[in-house]
């Protein structure tokens, strides 16, 4: 196994593995060494995709959401599907930072920084869509309360108003949490940097952190308080997204299972995304010693557990459709699984989200990174399809048979599907280049405790 030292990336010769400062060197090495070629290639490719996405966004803003394949009654399409998908991706980070912190899972610290970074980036991606999908995005601010001459305010009964508030709060609280956790590392970066401007850059971001014991104490307390409030928050956000559907009358949406099932689904897809990113970082930065195979396995277990919760949700949909004793609900459920042209999406979703993950019962699979990553990519596809099925099929298969329409995507839908990956990866590439992807202070602390 190639280690960082083999790659001669500037770790001081006197540092040995296990000595204090070693992990700081290892984790910060990618930032201070010269930009590798793969980064440029990846960044350029992502930025190119981002460019395409921006082209689509500008077009949609100028010409209208009618460019998408949405219609009456399938009035929501890829825009909302992507919103839920990206919010879901953005759930693992805060979940890892908060819930696992409260549960004193020490292995979580390895994941927390980049997972939370990915969360924030995914939130940026997700946050675009509620805006972009509006018929009149210029009036999006009407979703927030402010004093106005219309004497009008958002409708507090609408799940979309809740969404707007919940996603904003989630983004803000996640950012705060992430930032205070970054302070010591930013200080370390400031101290490690050699270039004056780089030093100043990190110095400003670190706000003068100097490792004072009282600050450490406050940081510790604040982190726990953040974890305490972020835990219900993270559950509430996707619950509210689930409520968007659950409070609606639409067959296929009108289920009380939606909030918990959406949360499980979000964590499920979020962990899958985290595993993919972790595997990438391990390989790119040769961080096998930092992100160990045990860490990967733990995350894989989470994928399995949440995947089973999602599978339970699928089962409950059938149960509820039967138990509701509502003819249209039952017909819809049957149609979704067996009717054309919906069945393909449904069974692909079942294959990825329920079938494929069963391999994770085996330790060998969980510890086999390529296989694990493949399953996780499948989970992402499956979870995207799940949202696609929920949104377009339920809407298109309206109450009145005369109103049925099939959603069929246009080129703009495809650009909207793939474009956000450009944004996500561009920001992710910048993130791993600028900030330490793993909390260095926590890694050092853990290392010192081991000794």
């Amino acid at each position, binding site marked *: 196994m190639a280690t960082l030292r083999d790659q001669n990336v500037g770790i001081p010769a006197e540092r040995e593995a296990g000595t204090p400062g070693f992990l700081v060197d290892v984790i910060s090495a990618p930032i201070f060494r010269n930009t590798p070629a793969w980064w440029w290639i990846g960044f350029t490719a992502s930025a190119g995709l981002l460019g395409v996405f921006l082209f689509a966004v500008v077009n949609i803003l100028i010409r209208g959401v009618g460019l998408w394949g949405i219609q009456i009654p399938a009035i929501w399409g890829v825009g909302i599907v992507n919103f839920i998908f990206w919010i879901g991706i953005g759930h693992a980070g805060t979940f890892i930072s908060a819930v696992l912190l409260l549960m004193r899972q020490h292995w979580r610290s390895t994941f927390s920084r980049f997972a939370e970074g990915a969360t924030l980036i995914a939130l940026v991606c997700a946050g675009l869509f509620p805006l972009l999908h509006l018929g009149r995005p210029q009036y999006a601010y009407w979703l927030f309360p402010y004093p106005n001459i219309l004497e009008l305010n958002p409708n507090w*009964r609408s799940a979309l108003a809740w969404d707007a508030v919940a996603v904003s709060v989630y983004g803000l609280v996640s950012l705060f949490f992430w930032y205070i956790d970054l302070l010591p590392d930013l200080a370390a970066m400031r101290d490690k940097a050699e270039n004056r401007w780089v030093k100043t850059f990190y110095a400003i971001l670190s706000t003068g952190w100097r490792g004072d014991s009282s600050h450490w*104490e406050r940081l510790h307390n604040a982190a726990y308080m953040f974890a305490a409030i972020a835990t219900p928050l993270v559950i509430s956000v996707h619950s509210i997204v689930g409520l968007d559907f659950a409070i609606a009358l639409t067959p296929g949406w009108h289920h009380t299972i939606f909030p918990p099932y959406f949360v499980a689904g979000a964590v499920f897809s979020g962990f899958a995304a985290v595993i993919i990113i972790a595997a990438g970082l391990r390989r790119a930065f040769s961080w096998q010693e930092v992100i160990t195979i045990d860490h990967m396995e733990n995350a894989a277990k989470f994928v399995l557990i949440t995947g089973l919760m999602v599978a339970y949700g699928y089962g409950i949909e059938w149960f509820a459709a039967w138990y509701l004793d509502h003819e249209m609900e039952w017909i819809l459920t049957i149609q979704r699984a067996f009717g054309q042209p919906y069945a393909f999406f449904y069974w692909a979703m079942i294959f990825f989200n329920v079938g494929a993950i069963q391999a994770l019962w085996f330790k060998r699979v969980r510890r086999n990174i390529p296989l694990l990553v493949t399953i996780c990519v499948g989970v992402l596809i499956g979870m995207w399809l799940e949202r696609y099925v929920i949104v377009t099929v339920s809407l298109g298969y309206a109450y009145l048979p005369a109103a049925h329409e099939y959603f069929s995507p246009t080129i703009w839908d495809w650009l909207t599907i793939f474009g956000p990956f450009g944004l996500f990866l561009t920001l992710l590439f910048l993130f791993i280049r600028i900030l330490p992807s793993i909390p260095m202070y926590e890694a050092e602390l853990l290392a010192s405790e081991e000794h």
Partner: protein
Amino acid sequence: MVDAAQTKSRPLFGVMAEFEDGESLLEAAEKTREAGYTRIQAYSPYRVEGLAKVLGQDGNILPWFVLAALIVGGVLAYYMQYVTDVVVYPINIGGRPDEAWQAFSIIVFEAAILFAGLTILGFMFLRSNLPLPYHPAFNAPNFEQASQTRFFICIEVTDPQFDLDETTSFLQSLDSLSVNEVES
């Protein structure tokens, strides 16, 4: 950037001792407290368990602030929704009651969390007197290692017991790697 001439003319901030690891720092802190010093500051690259307690910095009033923020945020959010939907411009929305506390509760929850989050952030920065780009501790030699490998303890001149020579030698007696005077 620091001007060398300026720094030279500055008064003394304290005496700083450098340590190898957290245990030494904790031990040194305990001894310093026993020696009767009160204006002590300790610096470390990560949180040293128990250090704050030794230095008397372990009181945690943050939860009370957070609780207050949760209540204030929630009440304000309910009040806002009540005023806009019931008092100012009640509008029949889907035949639901004007005061829809069931629906209002969600914004109440989110607002409470937002207020709490802002409180934690504000508390963290304000109580720690951050941002503070300039601090005398940074003047200590090798202090850049405080964020990576080394641990420091500093006795300030403002300490009633402070005496440059005595304090320096006291710190030197604490298994420290080095002891330096720090200008403010």
